[in-house]
């Protein structure tokens, strides 16, 4: 029982990383109608960026830990920077192709992903080597029914759930959300309502990028190593999460993230190879059994 609970904690921890990343993935798909395969690289940029931003705050750190205010600043700067890069990627690489066939945008996204991985790798001050991630949170450990859970894990899980709820409300209840839904259903009609669709899409990418940074910071806080390749696997897993939950659906992204995280941890406990494969097995099964995902509805005009 204790080890079952312990695995569940690890599953939720990993799931919250996937969920935060999948939220942006699914929003970009839902609103813009493209699979941004470079989304995982935004996570890497956020995590690696945090490493460098934290260096700028070195003078205020005491024994390798930072005061709360500095941690807040570091995270905020990383979010804004990653969100900004996501907006730039959309404006430069994706916007000119918006009215072209889907496949062209998909191929471009693969190219963008390669660029985002390999450009920093080629920069002398970044390079390919893994770096230790700074300690932003000093975890306190609690024991519940024999399983241990840290304050960092609790924060991550709550953060993923709260972010999901906030995004869900944003899209369902605010004027910006209504504009996003209009753009997702019909871009021309949305334009004819006086909606600046470039702006709506930029905001969507900004949110996706900023959340990817948070996801990267969470991931690196529990697996404290960052390098330019870290986005690829996590990006793939968040894609699986989004498809599992029903791509385009915000609640589905979080659900898919947690399910995949938990499944992976339990599968790894059985056999580590199985742990790596389980994500793809889930993807294949969901595509065969319920292609629209758990929360997805099959709609005729689905983008």
């Amino acid at each position, binding site marked *: 029982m204790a080890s079952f609970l312990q695995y569940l904690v690890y599953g939720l921890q990993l799931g919250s990383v996937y969920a935060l990343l999948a939220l942006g993935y699914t929003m970009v798909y839902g609103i813009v109608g493209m699979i941004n395969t470079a989304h995982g690289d935004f996570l890497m940029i956020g995590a690696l960026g945090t490493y460098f931003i934290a260096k700028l705050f070195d003078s205020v750190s005491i024994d390798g830990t930072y005061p709360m205010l500095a941690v807040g600043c570091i995270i905020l700067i990383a979010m804004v920077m990653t969100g900004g890069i996501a907006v730039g990627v959309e404006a430069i690489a994706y916007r000119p192709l918006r009215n072209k066939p889907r496949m062209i945008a998909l191929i471009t996204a693969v190219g963008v992903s390669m660029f985002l991985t390999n450009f920093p790798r080629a920069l002398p001050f970044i390079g390919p080597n893994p770096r230790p991630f700074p300690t932003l949170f000093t975890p306190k450990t609690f024991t519940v029914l024999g399983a241990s859970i840290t304050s960092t894990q609790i924060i991550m899980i709550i953060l993923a759930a709260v972010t999901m709820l906030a995004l869900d409300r944003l899209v369902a209840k605010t004027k910006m959300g209504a504009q996003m839904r209009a753009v997702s259903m019909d871009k*021309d009609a949305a334009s004819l309502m*006086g909606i*600046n669709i470039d702006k709506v899409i930029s905001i969507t990418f900004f949110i996706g990028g900023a959340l990817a940074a948070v996801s990267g910071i969470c991931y690196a806080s529990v697996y404290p190593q960052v390098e330019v390749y870290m986005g690829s696997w996590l990006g793939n897993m968040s894609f699986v999460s989004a498809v599992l939950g029903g791509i385009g659906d915000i609640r589905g992204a979080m659900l898919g993230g947690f399910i995949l995280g938990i499944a992976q941890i339990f599968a790894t406990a059985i056999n580590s190879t199985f742990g790596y494969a389980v994500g793809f097995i889930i993807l294949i099964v969901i595509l065969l059994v319920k292609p629209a995902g758990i929360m997805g509805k099959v709609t005729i005009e689905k983008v």
Partner: protein
Amino acid sequence: MSMLEVKDLHVSYGAINAVKGISFEVQQGETVALIGSNGAGKSTTLRTISGLEKAKSGSIIFQGQELTKLKPYQIVELGIAHVPEGRRVFSRMSVKENLLMGANIIKDRSKIKRDIERVYEIFPRLHERMNQQAGTLSGGEQQMLSLGRALMTSGSLLMLDEPSMGLAPILVEEIFNIIRRISEDGTSILLIEQNAFLALNTSSRAYVLETGNIIMQGKSSDLLADERIKEAYLGA
């Protein structure tokens, strides 16, 4: 003074020249029809006025402003409302939400309330169905919603792209009565139709478009009586 003046407009899709140098105008308060058979370039003309397509050359001047370099949302803000071909309602939004999307650029909440009441008064059927998903409405109801949504933008020029398409005759009549009423309320209208008879009966002036060129123009009543028009478009 013309409200809308299109001068020597060319539009192409890659190698296909859809609009080949047309000029026309709409005066304040007028209803002008643009008629022509399928593929003549009518929708392309409206889409270019709204900024959804780029003009290759020529100019579009609305109330003294050049539109060809503007984005669609800026053109809506200047006061052009466009009911697109095929209705294009937001299918997974309710009727009411669709109407509120139409009021996207309106800041004054009390105006939005008044306008929505006016739309419900013009289209009682939309009022009955205000919480229904737009995608589940009938074709006629969707056309009403698309029209109501465009009215919510409070434009001074209303452009309609084939409002009769795919509708039963009784509904067509209902929609056209409403269009006449909107015109009487002072809105200028640019009406596109394949149904030339209907369009000429609703408008004061008209232009005939054929494969991207305007081949005839004049008072609608004169065109209705014209032998060539009768033969080509009125099925006489």
